[in-house]
């Protein structure tokens, strides 16, 4: 008897826990890379999307959320941020995005500096952003280091500490290389040649043999996977002519590359598409802010998409870190300038998930991670905001520093009113 009651109690605990892990979102409008207007119920169990269907019936112990036609999207992904590595931009001690140390360029792993306790994280998570690429910047050489993929879960963490090696070309690369784009390209080829040499002489290197390389051994080791085509080289480049040079080099060295910036990408969209190179871009950049972006325009995203380029978005302008969630405002502006809503959603969910190797994430499909956002309106619309945010199948708190500040002063203002 006693044993039985203990067992049943254990069972009831288990059921309660199971129930606590399960949610049924009734009658949501699914808004994903596949389209924006199918309606369905979505059952979340143990952190995953278990079932998608119409009229799913569940045990009354499972919490049911009546969406009443509200939009449900995958959690958002911003493909170019400094989240967790630059707390206050003007305070150098809180900024880890770049290093002046020229011995460590490609070898720098920005993941080592990631701070999961940053106040940026709750702010962005509660606004629907759960994934971000954190990208180092170049300061001592062309190579900035290795980008990392982070997840803004209840406790934010590094998903992959090295998803790409980042290199800076264009105007900034020119300056880093001593004042010529030609020098930058020559330095890049030299680094790749040395990395190839180092890779093919690994056995001798392991025995202690050393060569006169221009790059440090640590940097060449970091470039191994790049020259072998196993890890993407993320190339920051803007001007159409510079993009073409990069595509030629990538073909020559059989590199797997991703372009970032690409403000003039639309002028060479066919070539980018033919090379199957994804592009990280902010669709809102339409100004000739540099001589390398004279042809920047608001329909860049649409023109690239039309040519068949895989798009990964960042945004909004230089607020792509503290307000990384505003990537959806940039995406909305892309739609205002010709991109379809589904393509815009793809660029902030499914596309980056696929390009950066997130297995079964970034979409609303059975078996996928239940990282979802339920909105009060069209998620690409600036007036919309999340009603509920699910991370790993559970609703997360909307608390952030910003909300606490707001509540403190709003309640004071209300008390002061007669």
């Amino acid at each position, binding site marked *: 008897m006693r044993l039985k009651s203990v067992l049943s109690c254990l069972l009831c605990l288990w059921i309660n826990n199971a129930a606590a892990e399960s949610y049924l979102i009734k009658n949501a409008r699914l808004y994903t890379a596949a389209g924006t207007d199918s309606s369905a119920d979505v059952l979340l169990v143990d952190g995953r999307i278990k079932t998608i269907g119409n009229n799913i019936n569940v045990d009354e112990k499972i919490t049911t959320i009546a969406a009443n036609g509200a939009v449900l999207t995958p959690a958002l992904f911003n493909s170019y941020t400094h989240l967790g590595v630059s*707390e*206050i*931009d*003007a*305070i150098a001690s809180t900024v880890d995005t770049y290093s002046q140390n020229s011995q460590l360029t490609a070898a720098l792993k920005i993941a080592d500096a990631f701070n999961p306790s940053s106040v*940026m994280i709750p702010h962005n998570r509660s606004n629907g952003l759960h994934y971000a690429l954190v990208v180092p910047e170049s300061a001592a050489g062309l190579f900035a280091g290795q980008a990392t993929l982070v997840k803004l879960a209840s406790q934010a963490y590094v998903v992959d500490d090295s998803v790409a090696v980042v290199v800076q070309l264009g105007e900034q690369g020119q300056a880093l290389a001593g004042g010529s784009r030609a020098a930058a390209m020559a330095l890049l080829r030299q680094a790749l040649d040395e990395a190839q040499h180092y890779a093919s002489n690994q056995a001798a290197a392991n025995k202690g043999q050393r060569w006169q390389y221009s790059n440090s051994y640590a940097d060449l080791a970091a470039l191994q996977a790049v020259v072998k085509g196993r890890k993407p080289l993320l190339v920051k480049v803007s001007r159409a002519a510079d993009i073409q040079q990069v595509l030629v080099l990538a073909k020559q060295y059989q590199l797997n590359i991703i372009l970032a910036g690409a403000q003039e990408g639309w002028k060479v969209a066919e070539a980018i598409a033919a090379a199957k190179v994804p592009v990280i871009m902010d669709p*809102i*950049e*339409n*100004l*000739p*802010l*540099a*001589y390398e*972006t*004279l*042809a920047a*325009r*608001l329909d860049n995203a649409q023109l690239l998409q039309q040519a068949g380029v895989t798009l990964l978005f960042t945004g909004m*302008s230089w*607020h792509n*870190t*503290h*307000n990384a969630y*505003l990537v959806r*405002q940039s995406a*909305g*502006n892309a*739609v*205002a300038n010709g991109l379809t809503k589904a393509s815009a959603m793809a660029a902030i969910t499914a596309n980056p998930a696929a390009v950066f190797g997130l297995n079964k994430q970034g979409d609303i499909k059975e078996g996928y991670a239940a990282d979802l956002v339920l909105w009060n309106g069209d998620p*690409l*619309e*600036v*007036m*919309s*905001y999340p009603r509920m945010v699910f991370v790993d199948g559970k609703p997360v708190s909307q608390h952030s520093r*910003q909300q606490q*500040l*707001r509540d403190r*002063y*709003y309640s004071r*203002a209300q008390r*002061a009113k007669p």
Partner: protein
Amino acid sequence: MRKHSALIALLAAVSLVLSACQGDKTKAAKPELPNPNPYPSTYQLPATEPTLIQNATVLDGLGKQWDKADVLLQNGKIQQIATDISPPAGAQLIDAQGQWLTPGFIDVHSHLGLYPAPETANHADGNEMTSPVTAEVWAEHSVWPGDPQFEKVLAGGVTTLQVLPGSGNLIGGRGVTLKNIPAITVQAMKFPDAPYSLKMACGENPKAVYGEKGVAPSTRMGNMAGFRAAWIQAKAYQKSWQDYVADTVAGEEVDAPERNLQMETLAAVLDGQIRIHNHCYRADEMAQMIDMSKEFGYSIAAFHHGVEAYKVAPLLAQENICAVVWADWWGFKQEAYDMVPENLALLEHAQACAIIHSDDPIQAQRLNQEIAKAMAAGNRMGMNISRAQAIRWVTSNAAISLGLEDQVGAIAAGKNADLVLWDGDPFSVYSHSNKVWIDGKLRYDRNNPAVAPTSDFNLGMLQGQENLP
């Protein structure tokens, strides 16, 4: 007119004294005062046909939404807004069914022309960081009218811009209010008779710029000391001219004081002719600046970049000072750390004069989206802010801060015909401006690029329609 009013008052006083003294003095001299407007506007009101915009949804900038209204533009002015206006003979008719009409947007914090595109050192003329007080510099002497960003911002509906010097200095110099029209000279863009402004900056920027050079100010208390020293000097300078005028009028042969451009601008602030636009992020510093304005007897028109304005919203309302803010920028420095997206809403709640600004050519192209986010944040918190209310943040409230509320910022009879016709709800990310008028002249038409020829800069660099926004 305002700019000259103090001078006119002074001259009137002079003539009064002159006539009163005529019995005693054989010869009364007229004081020679510096020309207060040596770089006058050459803007010409363009000749326009009457235009009748019919059946638009109108946000009038004064707090009202008209669901279906006609607006008649004539001779550069808004002649009438009503539910049904019969077209005058020869009027151009615009069918605005399904479209929204708002006043032309006013960006009270722009650096267009001072930091033009491309952003090169050759072009960067916005921050005279060679001395903490440079009240003697005038932004209009740096503005490059050929900046290719002006046309992009026009497409975003911005018809009036206040171009301010940067914030590296305590007192950065005079700002200038421009009409966003294509021009070869800045004089042709200057808003006729708009009051001048003076840019001041609290906080981190001046103390960092000069602290790094090892000179004052290097602290916030150093900032305050620097401001106060300048005002003390300005008081003395103001008095020297007042004495000169009085003595001259009294018939004494006195030399005019030596002109000092820096002091001339500061004295004009003390005289109430120049309006203070003060970069100030932190609530506590706003309170210091308010006390300082009382210490020296001038008023503050607006605090800009007021990330913490919501903390002192009732004080700003009481002091009649506008708060000029972003929707959601934060984190780029310590003083920008306490951002809340409800800043504008909380200011509105306190009945303070709330204004959006850009400070940035990307933001300036979509101030409608910025106020939409701020409105939504307030409504999410439980307020009930309408579009008609929120549009004031970029129109009539902005006009108040510039002292131009009699002319711009509203769709009402007698105001300048500065208007934006939107192809949908202007608070939607998907909407575009279809047409933009300034003083009744069509300056931008999304469907007719010929209306707005691109800048000289773009010629030969971009082909065909590549310059489109």
